[in-house]
């Protein structure tokens, strides 16, 4: 019964979305206040209906209602509750419903909290948002109904893929979708602005918090995904440049560029055209990612089972949304020019450079991801574009961006003095040289790339800290003055500090773990011992154990360092009956210096076991750095100018000074 209710709620949601997509838009065009006012309740009702549908599906999963086909295919009664819940989005239909849920939640959030938006603009935003919802509702209802019944109901379900039965992955899709779908807000704001024919500082200030929130979620989602790959796949890798990974990375790159260019629009009223285009492109890349994962046009290690009919539907929708918005852009963008002038060397210039390199890098990832498809379609040749390509192209493109990101925040607006900025970074330069020297001395026998690599990370972190110190006049002014400045300085500046330092940490983590990793692979008998760097691993034996829904072999390894006991590591090799599958559960010990990583593999005929050990120095800095970036985003999000709300939209003729006054007067 509940399943039918859920289905019915989706049908109703579609009709509400259709109304919301048209009436408020027409109302804004005709100036009809009644029609404009419809947007808000429509968004809330639509949200409520989708929530009902989602709850109905969740209920079917939690109660193991196998008369629902989707539940029977993807769940199992013996599964822990957490994975019954995450099973809802562990499949194509359910994950689409989650997509939709997040979409309407964002829409409802604008309806509820968008008080600072002019009513007609809000109506346009919500209409655009509803157009996206119409597409996805139709997609769910016509091709991917999660509420389809299966009669007679089977005794038990087929189970969730055991690789997905993991806390890291249980929350990876929701965060990823919060990111993907969050960019739909930037898109809706951009399209609404194009319809209105106006983009100004106030627009940028409205868009920024939504983009920032989406970016935080996406960063977290990507970090969770790579962390999961790291500990679950059992090979110690965390990024494979797989199409599906790239599909989430491209919106991240474009979204990061968007965050930075929106600053220029907000502060200086420039780059409007480009920012609007970026907003459209960022969401388009999110949609492209959704398409790539579900259509099977590219081979990926992780993908949903594919269906050509679904592929055609979603591609048609993709083209309507993207081509529609870009056509609107082509027609309207010329009307949105102007704004403050600035020299190439200036804060704005730095942000332009950031955008230039990020978008070039994004285009490169797009080219590499789709190239096998291009070539196959044109010539029938099948080739592979793997990690070596991306490392060779993406790396060099990001290098100048990373070097420059340390200097950017030190530059003055409009016209800056680069030597002066470098002079003000003298401690960072000193720290970088010290790092260069230290790695040269300590790791001269390692890969040479590590030396400039570590220095780069130190440069970014040290510069972020030194910039913050300048902001506080730390050690230059009395400590009381510095504390006062700490309380007064804008949170968004602190966001920059955290996020940039986080990026530096990621660099250090990547460079250190890939350059100085120790890797040992061998066949071991009980009692044997292997040295891994300064650690030794002694095999104490393997025992068969039984888990809640799997059987496993657990190996015990005693880890010693300089003869002293460090830890007992117990990696497992699990086999799940429903569905039948083998997984490796690596044992990971995280210390200050990095991770020890142990894997037990197959037994040989005569009772020995193949084993693998890694010592990965500083690898956890990668994820800590990601968390710092997210923290930076959240701190920036809490900036009072977002909370207090954007100032009333000023007239076209008004001077920017008024905005400055209103900010200063807060």
């Amino acid at each position, binding site marked *: 019964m509940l399943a039918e209710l859920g289905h019915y709620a989706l049908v109703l949601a579609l009709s509400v979305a259709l109304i919301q997509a048209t009436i408020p838009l027409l109302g804004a065009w005709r100036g009809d206040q009644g029609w404009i006012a419809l947007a808000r309740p429509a968004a809330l009702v639509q949200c409520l209906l989708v929530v009902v549908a989602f709850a109905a599906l969740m209920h079917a999963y939690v109660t193991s209602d196998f008369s629902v086909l989707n539940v029977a295919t993807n769940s199992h009664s013996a599964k822990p509750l957490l994975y019954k819940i995450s099973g809802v989005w562990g499949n194509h239909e359910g994950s689409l419903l989650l997509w939709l849920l997040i979409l309407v939640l964002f829409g409802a959030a604008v309806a509820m909290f968008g008080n600072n938006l002019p009513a007609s603009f809000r109506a346009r935003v919500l209409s655009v948002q509803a157009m996206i919802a119409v597409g996805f509702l139709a997609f769910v209802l016509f091709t991917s109904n999660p509420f389809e019944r299966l009669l007679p109901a089977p005794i038990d379900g087929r189970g969730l893929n055991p690789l997905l039965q993991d806390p890291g992955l249980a929350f990876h899709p929701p965060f990823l979708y919060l990111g993907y779908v969050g960019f739909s807000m930037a898109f809706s704001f951009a399209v609404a602005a194009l319809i209105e024919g106006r983009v100004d500082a106030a627009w940028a200030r409205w868009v920024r918090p939504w983009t920032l929130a989406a970016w935080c979620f996406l960063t977290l989602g990507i970090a969770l995904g790579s962390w999961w790959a790291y500990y679950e796949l059992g090979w110690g890798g965390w990024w494979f440049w797989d199409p599906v990974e790239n599909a989430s990375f491209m919106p991240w790159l474009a979204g990061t560029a968007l965050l930075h260019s929106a600053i220029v629009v907000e502060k200086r009223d420039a780059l409007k055209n480009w920012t609007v285009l970026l907003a459209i*492109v960022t969401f388009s890349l999110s949609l492209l990612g959704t398409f790539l994962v579900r259509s099977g046009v*590219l*081979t990926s290690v992780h993908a949903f089972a594919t269906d050509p009919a679904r592929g055609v539907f979603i591609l048609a929708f993709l083209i309507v949304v993207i081509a529609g918005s*870009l056509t609107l852009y082509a027609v309207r963008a*010329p009307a949105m020019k102007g704004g403050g002038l600035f020299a190439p060397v200036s804060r704005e210039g730095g942000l332009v450079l950031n955008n230039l390199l990020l978008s070039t890098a994004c285009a490169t990832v797009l080219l590499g991801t789709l190239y096998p498809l291009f070539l196959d*379609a044109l010539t029938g040749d099948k080739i592979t574009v793997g990690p070596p390509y991306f490392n060779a192209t993406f790396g060099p493109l990001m290098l100048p961006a990373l070097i420059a990101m340390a200097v950017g925040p030190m530059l003055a607006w409009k016209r800056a003095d680069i030597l002066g900025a470098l002079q003000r970074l003298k401690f960072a330069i000193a720290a970088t040289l010290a790092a260069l020297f230290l790695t040269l001395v300590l790791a001269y026998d390692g890969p040479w790339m590590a030396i400039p690599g570590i220095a780069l990370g130190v440069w970014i972190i040290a510069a972020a800290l030194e910039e913050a110190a300048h902001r506080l006049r730390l050690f230059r002014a009395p400590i009381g003055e510095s504390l006062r400045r700490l309380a007064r300085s804008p949170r968004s500046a602190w966001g920059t500090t955290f996020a940039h330092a986080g990026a530096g940490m990621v660099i250090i983590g990547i460079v250190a773990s890939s350059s100085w990793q120790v890797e040992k692979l061998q066949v071991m008998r009980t009692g044997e011992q292997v040295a891994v760097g300064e650690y030794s691993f002694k095999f104490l034996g393997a025992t068969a154990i039984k888990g809640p829904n799997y059987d496993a072999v657990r190996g015990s390894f005693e880890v010693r360092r300089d003869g002293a006991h460090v830890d007992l590591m117990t990696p497992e090799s699990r086999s799940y009956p429903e569905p039948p599958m083998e997984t490796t559960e690596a044992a990971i010990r995280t210390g200050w210096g990095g991770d020890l990583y142990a894997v037990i593999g197959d037994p040989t005929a005569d009772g020995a076991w193949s084993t693998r050990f890694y010592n990965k120095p500083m690898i956890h800095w990668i994820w800590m750095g990601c968390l710092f970036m997210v923290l930076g985003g959240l701190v920036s999000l809490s900036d009072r100018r977002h909370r207090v709300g954007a100032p009333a939209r000023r007239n076209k003729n008004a001077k920017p000074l008024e905005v400055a006054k209103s900010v200063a007067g807060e």
Partner: protein
Amino acid sequence: MSEQIEEQNPQRRWLRLVPLAIALVIGGFLFVGLSLKPKEIPSVLIGKAVPQFDLPAIPGRPKGLKSADLSGEVSLVNVFASWCVSCRAEHPLFMNLQARNIVPVHGLNYKDESTAALNWLRRYGDPYDRIGADLKGRVGIDWGVYGVPETFLVNAEGRIVCKHIGPVRQEDLDEKLLPAVEALRQGGTAQC
């Protein structure tokens, strides 16, 4: 100011259409991509002589398989295993080919235990003329096998003419493999 001047220059307006054009081109490729099969890796052995190999029979069944067995007449070589689920789906088709004596089918029993393989053949029928037992899977690698089942069409000179990846369906036989067999027998060439 300078912006206004630019707006009056119509030559620049087409620039605004560039993003749209790029999106449409990508969309076109994606549409074509829907009908491509990226997971199927074409064999590099097409047109080449079959690899050199000499495999013993499955213990308990006569007739092993070696390279020389594959010249002299057009034949199919089917890579199968008892642990392979989708092999069961295509198996009745090969039974039918054998019953109607249309084309000889040889088996390459890939990484299989001999008792399991014999039981499997007893249960589902044995349509094969010769079967080579590839215990280590090394001959499979020489043939470029990467997923079971796979089926190769070999001409009378012992050259590989085409490779079918995945279970053979009736329409694959009717539209692809059997017409090719016929063409080869007429002394012609075939492609598939």
